[in-house]
């Protein structure tokens, strides 16, 4: 399948900023199941040239803007050819040590409830256990926009029983790690289908390691493994570690951030894009 994506992030400053620094992970890697075509990233209409692999192998670029900046507009857009690999995410050019993905962070550290929750996932082998865990996350944490914040931890999410994709992914990686399974938080784009949670923002899901198969992508929010409707941008230990855009600003007071994602299936031979509306 060929997907067209336009991902736009806007930073607005109440007073002009004297210095803006941006760390961008907006370059989808070429993997077995996804090949970016004509992908381009611009910041205030200037192309961002060099993305270098970070420690996890995801492309990373740094942009520095000086002199009074009132607005920053980051656009990542292009076409990505995807293939359904039944959830298996493979073809990474660089693989770090797996046990790193057992590290819990401030956002994922399990409390007793999360640990118990993790152990309540049945299954005969690791793969079936992970499927069970993904289903459990979806059962126990209902989708409810606005019910959590970016600072919500996995333990808080489980206790509260409501959340969004970020919270599902946090709870999933937290529980998987508690079971000794390397797991990571992933950010990317999802082309929604009927019945899915359609998105105007980036989507988050998780990857867990299964010996013999490698990394498997679990989207607990939608109760499935990743398909050719998914475009993977970057991963990390938690949402903070895997943020596709990080910014640091000097000399400005109030910041408003808007993100907008448009994704659709490309018509054969045309670079036209469809806009998904919820």
């Amino acid at each position, binding site marked *: 399948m060929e997907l067209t994506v336009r991902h736009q992030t806007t930073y607005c400053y109440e007073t002009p900023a004297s210095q803006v620094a941006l760390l961008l992970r907006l370059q989808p890697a070429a993997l077995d199941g996804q090949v970016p075509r004509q992908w381009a990233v611009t910041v205030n209409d200037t192309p961002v040239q060099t993305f270098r692999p970070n420690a996890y192998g995801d492309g990373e670029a740094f942009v520095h803007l000086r002199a009074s900046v009132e607005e920053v507009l980051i656009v990542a857009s292009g076409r990505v050819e995807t293939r359904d690999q039944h959830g298996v995410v493979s073809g990474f050019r660089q693989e770090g040590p797996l046990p790193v993905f*057992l590290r819990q962070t401030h956002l994922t550290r399990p409390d007793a409830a999360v640990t118990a929750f993790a152990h309540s996932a049945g299954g005969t082998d690791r793969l079936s256990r992970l499927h069970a865990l993904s289903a459990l996350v979806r059962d126990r944490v209902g989708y409810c926009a606005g019910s959590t914040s970016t600072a919500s931890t996995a333990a808080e999410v489980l206790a509260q029983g409501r959340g969004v994709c970020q919270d599902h992914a946090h709870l999933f990686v937290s529980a998987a790690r508690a079971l000794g399974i390397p797991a990571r938080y992933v950010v990317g784009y999802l082309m929604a289908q009927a019945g899915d949670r359609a998105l105007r923002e980036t989507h988050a899901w998780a990857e867990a390691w299964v010996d013999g198969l490698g990394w498997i992508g679990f989207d607990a929010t939608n109760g499935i493994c990743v398909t050719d409707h998914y475009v993977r941008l970057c991963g990390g230990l938690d949402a903070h570690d895997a943020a596709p855009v*990080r910014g640091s600003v000097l000399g400005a007071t109030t910041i408003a951030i808007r993100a907008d994602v448009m994704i659709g299936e490309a018509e054969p031979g045309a670079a036209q894009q469809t806009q998904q509306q919820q």
Partner: protein
Amino acid sequence: MTFSEMHEQDGTIRSCYAEVKRWIDETGIDGLHGRMDEAEAIFRRIGITFAVYGEGGDPERLIPFDLLPRVFSRLEWERLDKGIRQRAQALNAFLYDAYHRAEILRAGLIPQDLVYQNEAFRPEMIGFDPPGRVYSHIVGIDIVRTGPDQFEVLEDNCRTPSGVSYMLENREIMTRMFPGLFSKGLVTPVDDYPALLLKTLKEVAPPACKRDPVVVLLTPGSLNSAYYEHSFLADLMGIELVEPVDLFVDNDRVWMKTTTGPRAVDVIYRRIDDDYLDPLAFRPDSLLGVPGLFHAYRAGGVTLCSAPGAGLADDKAIYVYVPEMIRFYLGEEPILSNIPTWQCGTESGLAYVLEHLGELVAKEVHGSGGYGMLIGPQATSEAVAAYAARIRANPGGFIAQPTLALSTVPTLGESAVVQRHADFRPFCLVGSQMRLVAGGLTRVALTEGSLVVNSSQGGGVKDTWVLRN
């Protein structure tokens, strides 16, 4: 039995202390006290103030200086020198390995979790090759002595060990006040340290640097307890002392803001903790730091000394495995031994420690500065019980060691020369080669019988002599 470094067992003076002894007798106790006041006045005027190991407290406090030098013979030093270099080399080899193939873990010599679950391990560093594969460019090794031939390593400092300014200033003061002591050329000089440090830092310039490298020293600012040392070293090396606000990153290079515009920086000797280096890479809530610094580092545009994540090697839980590292990476037997250490994180270790806590020295794995430490034999039973409760609550956070019979060195007491416990911190420089000046920082516990040499808890410093022959 406590070993007195000045005396043979029969009470006669050890030959390396002959000159010091002659000088003490010649000057007399009253004379020495008079000179001590002078020395203190000089220290205060120059403004040498700070707490050594980031101990907190008044940042402008003076550390007591003791006039009587601590002396090592040439033979003793040669052994120390070899042992220190060996350790510094192994620690750097371990760091490279830990962030790459982790052969030592595959060989089963160090438990995986101790590395990958370690707070000091920086996942961001995985797979990156720092210039020259050096992570810790200045290795400070804390050494204690328990006998004529027994030197043991108390801990390693691989991040940004401080205290070297004392080594230099103590010698400077002694030379200024007692030129006669040095005129015979008995003592090996230490004053080439800044030049060697600069040479070392230039050797690890990044790939993007095609000229004589521009080196800067990055300090958190003048409120930092070691600020004096930062400005002192920058001055002696003739390099800029910069704060995070002076730097910015553009085009994968680091620039400093000067009165004539931006100027590229190649090597940063940073005296800032990993957490505060770059708010985009590490702690996002940090107001300090240079956004994008870590990205420029990975892109080969700048070298950070020490490398982020170098602290993994000086973790107190990793310490236990340093002798294994020396055997594994260098194929040698360790020249300096470790102190036997029980890890409360292991079942057997915890059981032993809780049973013998009253005889042991217990420490927090991530603590420093002598705080959060229990000296069993000198603690009340209530204190021991309270500490035991802390260990039980978080066993992995603690280690324990036997109480050592630390050697003593001559120290100026009120009416006589007295013997006080001391430790020693040499500074090994690691660039494309290793360099070590013959000396270091001797810290002394000024209270009789005390084993705590930290300046925040009654410790002082003194000049350290390595004899030429």
